[in-house]
């Protein structure tokens, strides 16, 4: 089963789309309520972590 690699802290996320814009494999998307990860798509490159203005993303491996 494809696993999710990111922890998304909804309380911190401002849904600005910054992480989506820098995500090479298009592993993230926004809907009306929150940010989501597409299972199995994340390559753990961490560009979203570097770019997020509010540290709303954490890689599970780094937890």
């Amino acid at each position, binding site marked *: 089963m494809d696993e999710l690699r990111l922890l998304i802290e909804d309380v911190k996320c*401002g*849904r*600005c*789309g*910054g992480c*989506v*814009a*820098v*995500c*090479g494999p*298009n592993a993230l*998307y*926004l*809907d*009306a309520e929150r940010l989501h990860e597409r299972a199995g798509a994340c390559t753990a490159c961490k*560009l979203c972590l*570097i*770019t*997020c*203005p*509010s*540290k709303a993303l954490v890689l599970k491996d780094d937890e």
Partner: protein
Amino acid sequence: MTNEYDLVIVGGGPAGLSAAIASAEGGINVLLLERNDKIGVPLTCAEGITHLGLTTAVPLDRSFVSTDIHGIKLYSPGGREAMIDHPNAGYVLNRDVFEPHLADKAREAGVKIRTGCRAERLHRNGDRFNSITVENRNGSYDLHFKVIIAADGVESSIAREAGLTESLLPSQVESCAQYRLTDIEVNPHIPEVWFSREFAPGGYAWVFPKSGNSANVGLGVVPTMSDGKCPFDFLDDFVQRRFPNGRIESKSMGLVPSFEGRKRILKNNLMAVGDAARLIDSLTGAGISTALHSGCMAGKAAARAIKSGNLSNLSEYPQEFMKTFGRKLRFYRLGREIFTRMSPDEFDFVVELVDETFGGKTLTALNPVEILRKILIRKPSLVRHAPRLLWR
């Protein structure tokens, strides 16, 4: 409910709404999809726009203006200050009123608006894009169109799926954090810009007044220059220094890309507008005006092309946009290259020069390109920060 439209617009920000109004007024049937449940939220910018940038695209209505801008004050890292006095320079908007106002105008023009809808997948038939899968809380369905406009912001999934844009690199963007601060004292008509590598590496901090006691206070940083600190860490330091007794009413955030030229604007029957096409003033991060104008131009081009039955006429949009804004936006992008590499001493020089040039004068017009040109003439060594300038 019909699922066939002449034009589908993905995104209900200033660019998408402006495209919707212009295209519907051109006599075609238009559907606008907005991912969020409400038009105008969440806020992702400082809400500033110049007088010309706004009024050449949208008739001024006081209901969506927080305050008028009559100049700007600059602060350098070494403590220099410069005041540019420019009555009627622009406005700080209420985006949560402005965009619903545009949505009302769009509906009056005949546009159908569906909120809470996410564009999930783009489909093509040969060279042409012809339908899109849309998801909402009840499931998914397909929409068919002749032309599609991507107005879904810097993260545009539609423009990326079409191969019009690619993912950005953190070194190419400004990551921005902002608070709405209240219980502060500011000049309600004079925004402040603070240059400092200490609290805004690669960017600057801003104070855009909403009134005499509240403001959008934020900053942008280049993520690769920020040494692991996130923008809100920098913003807390700045707020502590400038408004130690301010109260945080709300917070917002966003990403500012750099202008990348006309290659991101049109592909077959798909046009991108606003942030989705990276049509932005890369130097200041201002994007509402280019969003409104690109949307309007794309909407008009779509209506003309569809009514004439010749979709190759869509190329009028990039031609008109680049003719009007291309040179200026390219110059701002080079300005950004210089700006992100300037030393504190160079910022001191620039702010001093601005004070020497504009201090004590009341301006009736201000051309940022001319200011940048003046700065480069007086300090040619700055050009070393942007080698591409030397080639031109």
